[in-house]
Every structure is written in structure tokens, then in C-alpha cells.
């Protein structure tokens, strides 16, 4: 497959993607959530940070869904719907950023190790194995407890534990590509190493990167939610879907909406990216295609 063919393949892949029902559902959900996040200031009925005095009962309990607070209020009397809409921003920013960093780290390590092999490759892949052996969540909790968590730190921590899978996949694929004739030909023609890596190998890896990038957003969103749920993720009062649950979970029996509405939102976001990612895998990467 030449470079041009790879690009042509990608554009036809996109058309094939659009023919899949589940993928369309996933895409639609992504668009809705991203739209809600971007338009949050316009569509949120209230300021997500304002602790309304009429948002709590006299004895300090949150209000159930109804008017004027459509999805009810949280334990501080803030409007849950507004917090959810703004929380989508946090989740997406972290999802995209952490995943972007993880993807870059994973690709660079996988690419380097796969192309150069030898001692450099061995060291990099042993390091990757080492990271695989870490209990990821435990590591993330430790890291988050060490640094004072801000959105950026949380994203960074997640990236640090999430690049490993990408690195392994990219490594395998690069190793195979590096052994192929057209790369050997480029090398004998005297092409520089960066040129081979970035002009010839990387374009062939793009489908793989896109697939892992999309699936990775799911993983990242879930990890962010879990960290925030444990209280070591995104800082209050910045809403994130995980920390909304963290703040309200002691009330989950008497005010279940405070836990399950944001929980459902996390599920939908992760599901949307999983659906799109899985469909992308099927259309972009024939080697990984399922048997149907």
C-alpha cells in the first residue's frame, strides 16, 4: 500500500463508517455532548456555581427534580442541570487532552522502539511492560494525591497511566512496517530516518492512532470520573461528572438522582466514543476487523 492509497483508503473508510447504525448513534451522541458543552453558557438555566438559598430545604436537604431546578439541586443548593452542562466541558477537556498526551507519548515510544529495535527498543518496551504491571488506578490515586490536583494535573496523571496500550500496539505495527520492502527501499535510497518515520511509517499508522485515540477518550473519561469520585480528581467548585457524584454520594439513598443522573452522563459519553471507535476499527483497520 502506498501513501496515497492509504489516504484514499481513509476517505472511503469514512463513507463506510457513515453507513453503520451504531457508529451513527455514537457520532450523534458525541455531537450532542460536545454541543452541550460548548453551548453550556447559553443553555444552562442557572449559574453552576451559585448556591441558591431556595435550593435547599429548611433542614438542608437537596431538592428533587422539578421546577425551577429541572434536575433538582445538589447538597449546596446548586442547580444540577447547569452543573452537568458545565461538567461536560471538564470531562471533555480532560478526555481530549489526557488522551492526546497519552497518544503522543505512546506513539513516540512505540514508533521509536519498533523502528530502531535493538537495545533502545528493548529498553523502551521493558519500560512499557513495567508500566503495564502497575495497578493503574492505584498509581493515579497516588499521583493525584501527590500533586495538588488541577484540571491539568489530572489530565497529566491520566496520560501517564494511559499511554501504555497505545505504545504496545504502535510498536507491533511499526515493527511489521519497518521490515517491509518499501521502507527498506527508502532506506537504500538514502532517505533520512526522520523522513522515513514521519513521511512513510506514521501515515500508515494513522488509522491505528485514530482508532486508539477514539477508544482512549472513553477510558480517559472513565478514569477521570473515578478519580474525581474518590475526591482526588477535579477540584470543587469546578463541576465534573465524577466530582458531582463524589460530593453527593452520601445522599445516594435519599437523593439518588444526584448520583445516577451524572453517572448516566458518564456512561453515555464513554459509550459514544466506544461505539465510534469500534466502528472506526472495523472500517480502518482490516487486520483488527471482527469476523462478521
Amino acid at each position, binding site marked *: 500500500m502506498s501513501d496515497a492509497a492509504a489516504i484514499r483508503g481513509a476517505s472511503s473508510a469514512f463513507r463506510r463508517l457513515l453507513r453503520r447504525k*451504531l457508529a451513527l448513534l455514537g457520532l450523534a451522541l458525541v455531537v450532542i455532548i460536545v454541543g452541550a458543552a460548548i453551548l453550556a453558557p447559553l443553555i444552562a438555566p442557572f449559574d453552576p456555581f451559585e448556591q441558591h438559598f431556595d435550593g435547599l430545604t429548611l433542614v438542608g436537604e437537596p431538592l428533587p427534580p422539578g421546577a425551577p431546578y429541572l434536575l433538582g439541586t445538589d447538597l449546596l443548593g446548586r442547580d444540577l442541570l447547569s452543573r452537568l452542562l458545565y461538567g461536560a466541558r471538564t470531562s471533555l477537556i480532560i478526555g481530549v487532552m489526557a488522551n492526546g498526551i497519552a497518544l503522543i507519548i505512546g506513539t513516540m515510544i512505540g514508533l521509536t522502539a519498533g523502528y530502531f529495535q535493538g537495545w533502545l527498543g528493548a529498553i523502551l518496551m*521493558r*519500560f512499557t*511492560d*513495567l508500566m*503495564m*504491571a*502497575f*495497578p*493503574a*488506578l*492505584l*498509581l493515579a*490515586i*497516588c*499521583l493525584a*494525591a*501527590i500533586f495538588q490536583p488541577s484540571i491539568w494535573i489530572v489530565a497529566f496523571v491520566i496520560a501517564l497511566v494511559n499511554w501504555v496500550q497505545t505504545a504496545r500496539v504502535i510498536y507491533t505495527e511499526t515493527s511489521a512496517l519497518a521490515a517491509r520492502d518499501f521502507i527498506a527501499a527508502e532506506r537504500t535510497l538514502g532517505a533520512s530516518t526522520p523522513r522515513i518515520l514521519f513521511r512513510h511509517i506514521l501515515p500508515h499508522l494513522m488509522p491505528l492512532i485514530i482508532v486508539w485515540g477514539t477508544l482512549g477518550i*472513553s477510558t480517559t473519561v*472513565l478514569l477521570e*470520573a*473515578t478519580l474525581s*469520585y*474518590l475526591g482526588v480528581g477535579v477540584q470543587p467548585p469546578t463541576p465534573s461528572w*465524577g466530582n458531582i*457524584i463524589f460530593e453527593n*454520594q452520601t445522599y*445516594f*439513598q435519599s437523593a*439518588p438522582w444526584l*448520583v*445516577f443522573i451524572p*453517572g*448516566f452522563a*458518564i*456512561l453515555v459519553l*464513554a*459509550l459514544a466514543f*466506544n*461505539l465510534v471507535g*469500534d466502528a472506526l476499527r472495523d472500517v480502518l483497520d482490516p487486520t483488527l476487523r*471482527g*469476523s*462478521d
Partner: protein
Amino acid sequence: MAALIFRRLIQSALILLGVSFITFFLLYVLPADPVRQIAGRSATPQTVANIREQLGLDQPFVVQYTRYLAGLFHGDMGRSYLQKTDVTTLIMARLPASLLLMAAGIAAELLIGLSMGVIAAIWRGRAVDNSLMMTSFITVSAPQFVVALLLLYVFAVKLGWFPIGGYGTPAHLVLPALTLGILGSGWYARIMRSSMIEVLRADFIRTARAKGLARSRVILRHALPNAILPVIAMIGIDIGIFMGGIVVVEGVFGWPGIGQLAWQAIQRIDIPIIMGVTLVSACAIVLGNLLADLVVPLIDPRIRIR
């Protein structure tokens, strides 16, 4: 084969060494001071200095780490700063609960996941297949704590079928195991489905069918045992995923395992416990991967060892 196992064991040991080094380093650069936690609020600077010296925390990083490693080689994971007990004792007291939960969780995963996969493969392309595959997507997209809280809310709080958490009877085990089972079932279902479809196409199955054997018999006695092989490799990897999530599930259900121990230790910077739990988890992960790599070729001659 023996040489290979030996090489893999050495590799695993090196990985664990690396894990211990990185964790130790991270805890060393921690901005919080464990000595202040130990010394308490009435401590004089003199007391603080004394404790620091006794624990060897005034030593340079290399010395501290070497000492820790030396202890480790003698099977000594150090003493908890705050509980003043051997970390080994604390972990051993709680490990059985975690292992029980892991075993029950994996059993639940297999039960749910494999059934889903087999059913989907048999009725491939039908509505039941599509809805099962959609379900498998949902389970892999669900946050662990949300599933845990949901099961707790529905089956314990509202219906009262199970206790709201705790430990001791089989009833206590159901919901946490089910949480892990539901979350992990999606992956198994998908792998089982592909594997089953492949096997069902194979010649020996066609022959069996041609001989006039009942469809159900063919599926259960001939196809299933063959299709299940690739799934076994997953179990090893699954141990790693489980070890990562142990903090959350044990926390929600009040399960007295090492996850809760770790969480309390992280809150109070009890470094020897954090180190101990991390290493035990890493051991479990490495062992799981090792098993996946070594056992699968033994039971499936088609897969050759690299």
C-alpha cells in the same frame, strides 16, 4: 520450555523491581511528611526529628531504597508507620478477602460474558445478537462506581435482597462480584462471540452436524470447549484490571480487602502500606500475565511459543 519459564521469571522479577523503585521514588518526593502524621499534634520539633531518624527518613533516597529492598529480600515489607504492625501481617490479614472477591468477580464475568458470547454467536446477526453486542458496549463504558452504587441502590436498598455491604456471608459477596461481573462481561462476550463463530465454521463441527448430531449437543460438547481457549488468555490480563479497580469496589461495598487498606494508607501517607499493596497488586498482575503467556500454549498446541 524450562529455560523459557526461567527467562520469564527473571523478567517478571525485574519488572517488580522497577515497580518498587518507581513507587518508592514517587513516595519519596511526596510533599507531605509522614513523620508529622506519626508524631501527632502535640509533638515537639525534637520528637519529630527523633522519629525521622529512627525510621531512617533522614537518610538519602538511595540508602532508604536499598534498605527497603534488603528487607524485601528477607520477606519483610516494613512496618506500618501508624498501625505499628508488620505490613506483611496487615496485607495477609486482608488478602484472602480480596482474592475471594477477585475469584467470585472473574467467575461472574465468565458466566455472564461467555453466555452472552455463545448466544450472540449462535443467533448471529439477529436481534438478540445486536442487543447483546450493544449491551456489551454499555458494560465496557460504565464507570465502576456507578454500577456498584446502582446495584446497591436497587437490590440492597430498594428491594432488600442483599445486605448493603460488609463481609462474611455468601450474600455479601453477590453484589460486589456482580459489579465486577457486569463490568468485565462485555470483553468476554465479544471475544467469545468471535471465537465461537470461527469454531462453528470449522470442518469438525460441520462433520459433526453432518453426522446428524443434535445442534445443542454439537454446540455444547464440541464447539464450546474449543471456542473457550482464547478466553483463558484474557483471565490473566483481567487480574490486572481487577487490581486497578479494587479500591473503588471494596470502598463502595465496605469489603475488607487490601484496596481499603491502600486507600486509608494513601490518605494518611502510611508509606510502607502503600508500597506493600502496590507491590502485591503488581505481583498479581505480573503473575496473571505470566500465566496467560505460559498456560495458553500448553492447552492450545496451535499457539506456538515465541
